[in-house]
């Protein structure tokens, strides 16, 4: 026998100003099955909650309906109240009288009637609620970090230091990411590698961290707490257990003309190589696409000269399988290159370079030993023009967003050049200066005031080569739109930050959302910046959107804390609003015919194929669908598609939905 309590909240004046809440409570009290109905000013407050608890106990209520704000706000609150009062928390339904009634209609009788109608339908629903219990899912306490840049490194260290196992995979031969390519970092002008390499070494030596470099994600399946990941360990052609990193192999390699990725094409490398001297692991890899042995079957000098016999041409790609409980995506970013700009030469002018190339020139371990030299002839430039917003904030080029870091690193580049060549002239063409971080604006002012970098507000329309120089046609909009032409020796474009070219593919493998620019989507832009909509997968760093190192490190630690929260118990609980395929006694077992249409349409891959077998003989009796409660998000798509209604949603069953509709239609509008 149902004994339902109805509690209508005034929500201050939010609801009561347009809805006659007393009338609603009165109408509710007359409904069949309703034992008690009342209204109160702030149902979510302590006294309000206490009132509900007391009412449940006094009137021996079997279910409650709370007419209040959106369930997104306080459903959890009132569920806890029900539990405290001794009834199952899923015997509590929320009638949204605020967002769906008082906030969208003017004060009138019709509005009050609508509130009454909604309460009536939910009373019908709650009468058919069954007690539900949170689902417990075991948690594998190992984390996978995809990406070995500063974001991945930070997250890994945080999780490993908390005592859990961490696996890092990095697709290039060494960890370090773009930060290892930088010469100095703003706003302190710290040497980038000096602050990064200690962390890289810590990661390599940490007892809780397993590092796989030259590796990529092959496939991911499973669900939060229980991911099943296949990782492809690409063939290095070098046995890491035997290699000592002596360097004999790449010193002997005759293939020396391969553009060096680490130096952004400004110099060449050999076919067997380590990316940079402080690489972790400091062991080489063979670039099979450019190695003479793999192309023509000749040479083999590295193998002949290796003192430990570590070179193995027969090595194959290997797939390993790991089980992890949480994944942190820290795959970083890429930048547009100079060929992206038709008006700046389509990349054909060697002295027009991008920001990362300038970093390599300025870096002591770079192709010019830290001297800023022109790529075309090695001369030191007397005049450098820096162009900010190259490609960013540009609807015509398809990149409307601001790349955030360029204003700062352009100031940094100009300063580095002036420090190395004080008599040189540096010009920055800018639109706005975005220097919002701590000590950031002071940094830019230092460039302008102390290092005498000339900042010109305006964009550059065209760059072309004339004799040995680059003619830069820009404008100073602050000086009465004065066109400005500069004969520069070198131009540095602060090109737009973009997602990695493989980002879309990876996101699809992981079933996480991404936006039109292929940056990965956070669960909520304000309140959940480090999680994705896929439970158990976190985001850290520039793969989510362009950001600088301080923000990246913060986000990485935040992602790590989410992982640690996940790992804080051996089991995790989930809401039981999940789909269930019916089961009954043999010989029927289930009405499900195994068409598996639900499996195809499930957006969360939460439905599996189950084989129902005879317990003794092992013969197959029937194939049916089975919902993985750990993954199911309760969207109900499968329920809609099921042809014979064998699958239903707990907490929102077909029967409940039908009785709600009937209840709604029973009264005239």
């Amino acid at each position, binding site marked *: 026998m149902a004994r339902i309590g109805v509690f209508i909240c005034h929500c201050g004046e939010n609801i009561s100003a347009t809805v006659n809440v007393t009338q609603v409570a009165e109408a509710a009290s007359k409904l069949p099955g309703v034992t008690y109905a009342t209204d109160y000013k702030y149902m979510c407050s302590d006294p309000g909650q206490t009132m509900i608890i007391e009412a449940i106990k006094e009137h021996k209520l079997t279910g409650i309906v709370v007419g209040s704000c959106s369930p997104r706000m306080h459903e959890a609150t009132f569920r806890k109240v029900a539990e405290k009062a001794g009834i199952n928390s899923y015997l509590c339904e929320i009638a949204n009288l605020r967002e769906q009634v008082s906030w969208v209609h003017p004060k009138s009788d019709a509005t009050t009637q609508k509130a009454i109608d909604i309460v009536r339908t939910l009373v019908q629903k709650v009468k058919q609620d069954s007690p539900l219990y949170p689902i417990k899912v075991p948690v594998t306490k190992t984390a996978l970090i995809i990406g070995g840049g500063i974001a991945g490194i930070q997250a890994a260290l945080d999780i490993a230091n908390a005592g859990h196992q961490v696996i890092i995979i990095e697709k290039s031969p060494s960890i370090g990411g773009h930060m290892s390519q930088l010469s100095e970092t703003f706003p302190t002008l710290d040497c980038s590698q000096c602050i990064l390499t200690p962390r890289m070494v810590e990661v390599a030596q940490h007892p809780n961290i397993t590092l796989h470099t030259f590796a990529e994600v092959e496939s991911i399946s499973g669900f939060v707490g229980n991911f099943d990941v296949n990782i492809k360990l690409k063939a290095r052609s070098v046995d890491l257990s035997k290699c000592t990193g002596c360097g004999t192999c790449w010193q002997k390699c005759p293939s020396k003309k391969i553009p060096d990725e680490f130096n952004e094409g400004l110099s060449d490398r050999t076919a067997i190589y380590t990316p940079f001297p402080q690489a972790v692991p400091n062991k080489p890899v063979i670039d099979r696409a450019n190695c003479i042995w793999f192309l023509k079957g000749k040479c083999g000098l590295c193998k002949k000269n290796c003192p430990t016999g570590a070179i193995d041409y027969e090595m194959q790609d290997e797939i390993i399988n790991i089980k992890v409980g949480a994944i942190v995506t820290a795959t970083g970013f890429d930048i547009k290159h100079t060929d992206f700009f038709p*008006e700046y030469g389509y990349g054909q002018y060697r002295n027009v370079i991008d920001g990362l190339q300038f970093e390599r020139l300025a870096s002591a371990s770079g192709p010019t030993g830290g001297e800023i030299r022109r790529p075309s002839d090695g001369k030191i430039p007397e005049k450098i023009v820096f162009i900010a*917003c190259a490609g960013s*904030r*540009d*609807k*015509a*080029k398809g990149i409307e967003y601001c790349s955030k870091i360029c204003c700062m690193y352009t100031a940094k580049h100009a300063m580095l050049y002036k420090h190395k060549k004080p008599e040189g002239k540096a010009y920055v063409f800018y*639109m706005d200066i975005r220097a919002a971080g701590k000590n950031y604006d002071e940094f830019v002012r230092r460039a302008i005031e102390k290092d005498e970098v000339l900042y010109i*507000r*305006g*964009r*550059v*329309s*065209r760059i072309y080569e004339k004799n040995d120089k680059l003619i830069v*046609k*820009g*404008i*100073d*909009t602050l000086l*009465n*739109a004065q*066109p*400005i032409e500069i004969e520069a020796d070198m131009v540095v474009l602060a090109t737009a930050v973009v997602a990695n070219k493989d980002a879309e593919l990876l996101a699809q493998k992981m079933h996480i959302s991404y936006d039109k620019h292929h940056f990965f989507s956070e669960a909520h832009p304000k309140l959940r910046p480090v999680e994705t909509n896929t439970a158990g997968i976190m985001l850290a760093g520039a793969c989510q959107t362009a950001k600088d190192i301080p923000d990246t490190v913060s986000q990485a630690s935040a992602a790590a804390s989410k992982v640690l929260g996940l790992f804080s118990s051996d089991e995790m609980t989930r809401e039981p609003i999940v789909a269930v395929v019916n089961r009954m006694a043999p010989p029927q077992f289930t009405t499900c015919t195994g068409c598996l249409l639900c499996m195809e349409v499930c957006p969360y891959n939460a439905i599996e194929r189950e084989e129902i077998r005879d317990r003794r003989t092992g013969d197959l009796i029937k194939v049916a669908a089975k919902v993985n409660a750990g993954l199911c998000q309760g969207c109900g798509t499968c329920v809609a598609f099921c042809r014979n209604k064998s699958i239903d949603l707990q907490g929102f069953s077909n029967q409940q939905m039908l009785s709600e509709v009937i209840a709604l239609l029973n009264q005239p509008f």
Partner: protein
Amino acid sequence: MHKMTIQKYPDCLRLQVEQATKINITECYQCGKCTAGCPLNGDMDIMPNQILRMMQLELPNYENKILKSLSIWLCLNCDMCYSRCPQEIKLSEIMDFFRQKSLRENKVNPKAKDILKFNQSFLENIEKNGKMNEIGLTINYKLKTFNLIQDVRHAPSMFFKGKLRLFPHKVQNIKEIKRLFRKTISNEGGSK
């Protein structure tokens, strides 16, 4: 140093331009790339990005300045600005609108008189013959501008190279052409 009070008013130039060309003037963020790449930036009196800024401010005296400027008549519709504008603003279409409005409201810059007269001579020539006739055009233009000596030395060599036709070659359906002119420019219909 006079104070400018900005008053947004319903019939401002910006709204007229937006209605006629469907271009959203607020999209311009004054980067100046248009002016930087304009081949005529050394000769214009108001720069292209300044013209947009003047419209954005909606100040009546600036709007007059635009219509009376030399810039709008120097603009060649080469579209260099449009091809480089990050916000894809088609300035050339806006310039066409300004030229037509400036002519209608009798605000053509005195320095642009020759350019205007050349355009008018050209169209009068087409209205009469359906195709352009150099001699007719030149005579008409010279009469309008009193610039009798210019280009005269080119004439003989042009004639001997077969580049000048002595007699106009009228198009067969000249009535159709005249009708088109009547329905559009002659009655000042067809202008935005």
